[in-house]
């Protein structure tokens, strides 16, 4: 390649980088930096005394301790329980597999108010599991975190596992390794990047969990996230909130660095097979894993969901579909401004926008981060960017939302009243998911293939189309599904960005639960079931989307 050509390539990369960087700069970095900055500026001068003040409080340390503890426990459990699940749902073939995959994703999109009702009604004194005395305990919080995040592990790891070339493991087995040893020494190392990816996502979700902790943790438990919310929205104590936001960023950056380190040690070109995935019928040796996963999914996911469905069928007149027929109304005493169906349509439309925004930005970023330039400096830059792009998950919705208030407030960017902010805010949460879904697969592509294509005269765009895209295959569908799920279920930012005359489904559900009147609670639960089914359906469709590949064995 001559010098001119490589300069052109560099210009191409720079252009590719501009779109995502501009997007994240305008809608994330600027608002967040502005609101945090307010906490550290007093009378026009930088004032960092807030730090020593807040960090001297014993309460602050207790909150940090609990945040880290619940996130660590939630992540560890989600990974331990999720790995067998990934195997069963992505490596085995059995009737109803698609439905099962969709089922485990349902909790991921349920609004926390609903999970509160579904989970807590089982745990409270007098509930089905009331005798456990788990209501308001650490265990209840962790169980709910795992309930939410199980799907993240299953899907992220599963999609990698499905593409893994089975031959190395078969070879190991043929050479006499036990199944466990073959798994540990051949398959597990190959899966490590995906596991690290999933674990860092889950850790971020757990560390920044808001509603789950408030509803299920009861009073004794506060996390950095809930404390930022209280300090910002209720006390307007921006100094304390700013310190806590920096602490949160620190925790998040630390966990990301750890994940990046473990990935870097493992992320090697793998033998992936595009298109056809290697799965097999359930064998006898799979039965323990199948049984284990059935118990986990049954206990952790099906039980609360069943309780939700049952309660949605209970009306003041007895059992029936009354709550569902009511969805065409605006609720008892007109609790809503629009019917629930109308809100569902709004949710879908917003989800379409959030998805295309997140996919555009996410795919561009994943593409950039998957390159392996030869210069060490460029490699380091990519490493740092990799972490930076995850930060939107580590910053609370309230910080972003209040940041929007004080930055996007003057023409030409007075967007505060615009409904456009809703899909944008949702896309911010979905982008890291898109990156983490696509990146392990892209990075597993043998760089020599790209080099070969380049030598044969393909420009970077062509290399991407001919080499990367076919391998991405189903992962793209998976990412689209994640985007939809995030958008349909997002409540934190949506609740104060959406317009009252055009609420989304979770906003409507929240409002119904908050309004007295016979039947409103039942309607809220029925609407939640609809939300769950909607998401499940969209995800099932997205999963089947795949870029057609000629079945090339890479």
């Amino acid at each position: 390649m001559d010098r001119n050509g490589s300069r052109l390539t560099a210009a191409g990369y720079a252009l590719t980088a501009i779109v995502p960087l501009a997007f994240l700069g305008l809608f994330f970095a600027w608002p967040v930096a502005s609101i945090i900055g307010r906490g550290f500026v007093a009378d026009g001068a930088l004032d960092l005394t807030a730090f020593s003040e807040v960090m001297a409080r014993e309460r602050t340390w207790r909150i940090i301790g609990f945040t880290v503890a619940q996130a660590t426990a939630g992540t560890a459990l989600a990974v331990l329980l999720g790995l067998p699940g990934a195997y069963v749902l992505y490596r085995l073939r059995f009737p109803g597999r698609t439905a099962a995959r969709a089922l485990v994703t349902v909790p991921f999109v349920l609004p926390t108010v609903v999970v509160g009702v579904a989970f807590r009604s089982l745990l409270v004194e007098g509930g089905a599991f009331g005798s456990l005395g788990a209501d308001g305990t650490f265990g209840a919080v962790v169980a709910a975190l795992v309930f939410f995040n199980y799907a993240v592990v299953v899907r992220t790891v599963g999609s990698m596992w499905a593409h893994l070339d089975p031959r190395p493991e078969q070879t190991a087995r043929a050479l006499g390794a036990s199944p466990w040893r073959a798994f540990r020494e051949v398959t597990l190392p190959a899966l490590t990047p995906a596991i690290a990816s999933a674990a860092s996502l889950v850790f971020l979700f757990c560390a920044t969990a808001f509603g789950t902790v408030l509803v299920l943790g009861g009073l004794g438990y506060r996390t950095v996230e809930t404390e930022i919310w209280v300090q910002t929205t209720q006390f307007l104590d921006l100094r304390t909130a700013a310190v806590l936001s920096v602490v949160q960023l620190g925790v998040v950056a630390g966990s990301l660095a750890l994940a990046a380190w473990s990935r870097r040690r493992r992320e090697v070109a793998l033998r992936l097979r595009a298109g056809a995935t290697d799965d097999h019928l359930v064998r006898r040796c799979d039965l323990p894993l199948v049984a284990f996963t059935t118990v986990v999914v049954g206990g952790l996911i099906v039980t609360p969901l069943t309780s939700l469905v049952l309660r949605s069928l209970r009306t003041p007149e007895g059992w029936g579909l009354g709550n569902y027929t009511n969805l065409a109304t605006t609720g008892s005493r007109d609790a809503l401004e629009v019917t629930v169906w109308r809100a569902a349509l709004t949710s879908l439309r917003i989800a379409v926008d959030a998805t295309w925004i997140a996919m555009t930005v996410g795919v561009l970023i994943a593409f950039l981060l998957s390159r392996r330039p030869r210069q060490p400096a460029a490699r380091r830059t990519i490493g740092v960017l990799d972490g930076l792009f995850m930060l939107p998950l580590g910053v609370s919705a309230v910080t972003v939302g209040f940041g929007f208030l004080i930055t996007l407030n003057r023409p030409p960017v007075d967007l505060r009243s615009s409904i456009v902010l809703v899909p944008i805010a949702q896309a911010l949460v979905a982008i890291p998911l898109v990156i983490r879904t696509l990146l392990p697969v892209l990075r597993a592509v043998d760089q020599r293939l790209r080099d070969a294509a380049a030598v044969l005269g393909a420009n970077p765009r062509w290399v991407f189309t001919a080499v990367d895209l076919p391998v991405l295959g189903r992962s793209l569908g998976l990412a689209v599904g994640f985007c939809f799920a995030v958008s349909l279920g997002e409540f934190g930012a949506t609740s104060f960005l959406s317009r009252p005359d055009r609420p989304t489904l979770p906003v409507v559900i929240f409002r119904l639960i908050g309004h007295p009147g016979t039947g409103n609670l039942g309607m809220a639960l029925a609407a939640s079931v609809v939300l769950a089914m909607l998401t499940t359906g969209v995800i099932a469709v997205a999963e089947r989307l795949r870029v057609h590949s000629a079945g090339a064995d890479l």
Partner: protein
Amino acid sequence: MSPIHRRRVAAAVGVVMLTATACSMLEDTDGSDDPGGTVVLVTHDSFAVSKELLAEFEESTDLTVETRASGDAGSLVNQLVLSKDAPLGDAVYGIDNAFASRAVSAGILEPYASPGATDLVAGLAFDDTSRLTPVDYGDVCINVDREWFADHAIPEPQTFDDLAEPAYENLLVVTDPATSSPGLAWLLATVDAYDEDWTDYWARLRDNGVRVSDSWSDAYFTDFSGAEGDGSRPLVLSYASSPPYTVARGGDEPPTRAMLDTCFRQVEYAGVLAGAENPEGAQQLIDFMLSQPFQRDIPQKMYVYPAVSETPLPPEWERFAPLADDPYQVSPAAIDAYREEWIRQWTATVVD
């Protein structure tokens, strides 16, 4: 068709349908070019008004009303304070007495004396500068599941002190004052009732097994035994106006009642925002909120009492939702000065 082929077709059809029905939201703009212009009302998530009323108002004034919800009352005021230099709208509704002082002292409001504000229920006015116009009020009180107490043959509690008695151990659920507005209101009621000793009272409640939930809906629907949920606690923090909504279909008396000696009075105000683009529109909106049709609509839509005296109430409210004769109150200035401190003390007493 091969199964794979069929699946792909199904997926394609699904995608096309999604994009066709759902499309994008981004092109949607609202064509609001009425001659009177647009007036933007910033409010909390509980704001509601009958559609016909609002339509009549828009027609008679040539205004288009755009509402913007900003979380709960606290979040609403704090967002307005933060965005003071570039106001979020023209008028605000939903500032309550817990946050009123902050709103006034931050200078986010313009004075406006609405002609409708001359005949209000006594004791609701904030001050004499007309920056805040009372629109409605309500009492936050402990609600009792009367059936539960009848079934267990325990007399119903009547006073604050009763709630701390061993007979009522593990029966009460309240909400967190840091995250819920009725929670804060009831904390204020105890401050008024016990003065400096209010933390001692909460220590007694704590020792008597009070449960603290994070939000009203969580407490009322999950922990409380008297609503649609099947919780186990027969005493819950709610509103004086809650009981009528627990009347079973076909029943004629609510199975719950409010303990009227445990109430804190919440007042909600409206005002014209400083720097409003359409201050005249904002003033018209406030006049509208004090008009009889709007005032009569309030109980039905927002479950609170109209601020204009002699406004007729729904019949079931007349029967089952009496207000407290002498509710507890704390001056807005004191609330503003000590809110955070009280919440901290409360947390230290009940949680830590």
